[in-house]
C-alpha cells in the first residue's frame, strides 16, 4: 500500500512542476504589474522603478522563479504584495472557509444523491423516478450563481431571515457565521446533487440487473436489506469517484459563489489577486489548489477498495 502511495505521489511531481512554471509565466504575461496597482494613476516613472526594485520584479524571470521555488519548498510562499501578509497563512485562513462550505455541501449532496438515486433506480420508470430525474435535470440546467442570487434575493433581501453581508468569522459568533454559510452551502448542495444523483441512479440501475441482487432476494431478504447491503455499496463506488473529482475542483475555490455571497474564500482570493497582480498570492494559491486536487484524488482512490474490493491497491 505504501509503495503505491509513493508511486502515485512521485507521478504527481511532473504535473505539479508543470503547473508551477505555467502559473509563474502566465501571471507575468498579463499586462500591468503590482507596482503600478499600488502607486495608482499619479505614479511617476521614478517611483514606479523604485517600487519594482523593492518588490524584486527587476531580476530576470528565471532568477525570480528559482528563488520563489526554493522558498516554496521550505513552506515559505512569500508575502502578499497588496497586504504584506505571509501568503501561506493567508491561503490557509481563506481555504478554511472554502473547505467548510465545500465539505458540508458535498457531503449533503452525496447523501441526497445516494438516497434519491437509489430509490429512483429501484422504482424505475415510476412517478418517483420521473420526479427525481426531472429535478436532477432541472437543477443541472440552473446556473449556480443565478441560484445563489435568487436565494440571496429571497432569504436575504426580501425575507431577511439570513444575513448575507460582512462575513462574521466563527471567532465572532459561531451562530452568525453558521447562518451566514447556510445560503452558500444550500446553493452548492443543490447544484452538486444534480449530477451526483444522475450518476448514482444509472449505476444503481446497472447493479439492480445483476444476478447477486436477485440472489439476495432469492434468500428471502427484504427489499430494504437488499438495497442497503447489496445494491448501495456496489452502486456507490463510481459515484464516489465523481465525488472525488468534484471535491478536487470545488476545493480549488468556488470563486463565483463566493462573489455572489461576498465570502472571503480561496476562490475570491485568487480572483482578487489576479486582478491586483499580486504575484506571490496567485502562485501560492494555484499551486495549493493543484496539490489539493491531487491529494483529494489520491484519497478517493485509496478509499475506493472500501466499496469495490476487486480494486485492491496495486
Amino acid at each position: 500500500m505504501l509503495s503505491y502511495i509513493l508511486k502515485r505521489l512521485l507521478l504527481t511531481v511532473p504535473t505539479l512542476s508543470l503547473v508551477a512554471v505555467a502559473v509563474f509565466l502566465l501571471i507575468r504575461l498579463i499586462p500591468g504589474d503590482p507596482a503600478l496597482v499600488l502607486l495608482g494613476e499619479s505614479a511617476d516613472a521614478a517611483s514606479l522603478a523604485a517600487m519594482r526594485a523593492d518588490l524584486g520584479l527587476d531580476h530576470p524571470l528565471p532568477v525570480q522563479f528559482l528563488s520563489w521555488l526554493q522558498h516554496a519548498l521550505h513552506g515559505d510562499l512569500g508575502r502578499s504584495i497588496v497586504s504584506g501578509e505571509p501568503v501561506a497563512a493567508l491561503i490557509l485562513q481563506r481555504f478554511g472557509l472554502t473547505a467548510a462550505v465545500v465539505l458540508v455541501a458535498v457531503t449533503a449532496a452525496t447523501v441526497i444523491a445516494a438516497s434519491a438515486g437509489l430509490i429512483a433506480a429501484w422504482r424505475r420508470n415510476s412517478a418517483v423516478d420521473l420526479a427525481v430525474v426531472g429535478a436532477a435535470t432541472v437543477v443541472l440546467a440552473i446556473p449556480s450563481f443565478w441560484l445563489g442570487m435568487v436565494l440571496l434575493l429571497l432569504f436575504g433581501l426580501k425575507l431577511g431571515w439570513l444575513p448575507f453581508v460582512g462575513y462574521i468569522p466563527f471567532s465572532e459568533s459561531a451562530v452568525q457565521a453558521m447562518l451566514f454559510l447556510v445560503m452558500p452551502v444550500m446553493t452548492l448542495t443543490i447544484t452538486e446533487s444534480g449530477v451526483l444523483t444522475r450518476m448514482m441512479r444509472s449505476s444503481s440501475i446497472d447493479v439492480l440487473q445483476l444476478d447477486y441482487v436477485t440472489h439476495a432476494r432469492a434468500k428471502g431478504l427484504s427489499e430494504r436489506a437488499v438495497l442497503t447491503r447489496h445494491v448501495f455499496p456496489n452502486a456507490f463506488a463510481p459515484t464516489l469517484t465523481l465525488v472525488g473529482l468534484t471535491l478536487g475542483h470545488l476545493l480549488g475555490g468556488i470563486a463565483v459563489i463566493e462573489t455572489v455571497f461576498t465570502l472571503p474564500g480561496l476562490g475570491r482570493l485568487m480572483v482578487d489577486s489576479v486582478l491586483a497582480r499580486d504575484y506571490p498570492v496567485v502562485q501560492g494559491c494555484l499551486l495549493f489548489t493543484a496539490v489539493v486536487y491531487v491529494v483529494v484524488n489520491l484519497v478517493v482512490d485509496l478509499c475506493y477498495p472500501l466499496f469495490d474490493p476487486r480494486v485492491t491497491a496495486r
Partner: protein
Amino acid sequence: MIAAVATPLLRFAGVRIEAVGRARAGSPPLLDDLSFDVAPGEFVAVVGESGSGKTLAARSILNLLPEGVRRVAGRIELEGRDLTQLSGPDIRKVRGAQIGMVFQEPMVSLNPAMTIGRQLAEGLQLHRQWSSEEIRRQSVTMLERVRITNPLRCLSAYPHEFSGGMRQRIMLAAVLLLKPKLLIADEPTTALDTLSQREVLELLVELAHDDGAAVLLITHDLGLVARYTERAIVLEKGRLMEAGSTRQILTDPRNPYTQRLVASLPRCDAAGTAAPASAPIVVEVRNACIEYPGRPGLWGAGTPTQVVHGVDLDVRSGEIVAIVGASGSGKTTLGRAILDLKPLAAGSIRFDGIDLAQMTAAQRKQFRRAAQLVFQDPYSSLNPRMRVRDIVAATLRHAHLDAADRAARVEAVLAQVGLASFGDRFPHQMSGGQRQRVAIARAVVSRPRLVVADEPVSALDMTIQQQVLALFRKLQAQYGFACLFITHDLAVVRQIAARVVVMSGGVVVEEGPVPSVFSDPRHKYTRELLAATPALEAAALMG
C-alpha cells in the same frame, strides 16, 4: 385402494406470463398455459433454446420476474399452497427457506463487495435463529462438503479471489445451507469450462440427493439432461412442446421440435473430412515458443511468462485440424501466432513454405488475404457501425478487384451463408447465429488458403451450432482451404475435425485422427476431457 396420489412438491397450472408496457402490448405471451408437476426429491429438466421462456418460468416460482414482465394467469403451488397469492412477507419466508436458487454467471452471482462469510450467514440469520458461532460452524462444514480448500480463509475472502467453478460451488453451499425442499438451477454451469462444469453438477446432484431436495435444472444442453435428470420438459417460444422421462425424450421424441433438438446431438459415427496424404501442407509449425511480456514495472519490463513452448503442427489444405484444451492451454495464442498476430519467441511458422518472420511487404500483403480468422464472440467481432455488406467487403479492400467484381463476390458469399437479403442490416439487428455467419462470410470471401476459427460456435445454442458447423464443412469442401479449429468442446471436435491436437499448459499432450483419439485416448488429460463431455455420453446412450 388406490395409493393416495402424493401431492406434488411443485405444480404449475396454466401459468401465463406477458410483457407489460405500451410498446409491447399485444405481442405474443412470453409463457403460455404452462402446466407440469415436480415430485419431492425428483430431478426435472426444463429444456429450451434462448427465448423459450425457461428462465422466466423458473423465476416466476419465487416471483422474481424482471421489471416489465408479469405473471397474468395460472397457479404455482408448493405442496398444495398457491405461491402466487402470497403477500410480500409470506413469499419472502418461502424464498431461501423452502426454495433455493442458483444462477448462471459466476462473475456476478456473489456480491463482490461482501465477504463470503457474510453472504453465507445472511440467509441463516434470516431463517434460522442460530448464534453467529453456530452459523460459522455450519458454514464451514457446508464449504467442506462442496470441497472448498481452507474454508476458514474462504469465509473472510471476497468473491473475486475465486475461480468461476469455485464460486458456483460457494453459491451452491449458500443455498443448500438452508436445506430447501426445491433447488432451482438456472443454467448453473453454462459459463464454465468442461471440467469445472462436471465437478459443479456432480456436486449439485450429490448434495441434493443427500438432503432429499428436488432439483429443477434449467438448461439448453441436452447432454446435461441426459446425464443428470430423470424427467424433462421441452419448451419452445413459451409453449410446452413435450414432457416425459429423459430416456423417452432422447430415444423416442414425438414432437417435431424435440426431434430437431435431439438431432443436434453429435453422432458417434460423424467424422470430419480427412485430407488425402498428398494434399500440400499450408501451415508448418516447428518448435513454436510464445511468451507474454511481464507487467512493465517502473524500471524496465517485468519477467515474461511462457505460454506456448515447443509445439509442432502441420495443416494441409482441405483438412480441418482441431486444437482442443482448457482455457489457458495456449491454443488461442498459437492460433494468433499462426496468423502472424503474435511474434514467436523461438521456433518457426511457415505458410506455403514462406517463414512468417522473413516475409517481404508484398508477401505479407498477399498473406493477409490468404489467411483469415473467425472470432468467438459474435457481438464483439463485427463493427456495430458498419452494414453487413461493408463488413464482408472489408477483406477485399486490398484485393485488385474492380467495384462490380467485388460487390458480386460479396453478394455470392452472403447467399452461400444463407444471408442473401441481409446486406443492408447492422449487426445489432441480427441474432448471434446470423452474426457468426457474417463473420464466416468475411473470412471466406477472399478465398483464403487458411482459415483459423477461434471457438466460433461456443456462444451459440445447440441447434444453431449445428447449422453453423454444417455451413463450415460445406464451405471448406467447396473452397478447399486449410482450417485450424480451436475449441474446448470435444462434442464439436467430433462433428467437424478429421485430426485433433490436445493441448494442456502450452504443450501438445496428444495428437492423431479423431476416431482413434476418441476411442482409446492415450493421455490422462484427454481421457478426463472425454469423460467430462456429457453430449458424447448422450450420443452413446442413443446408440
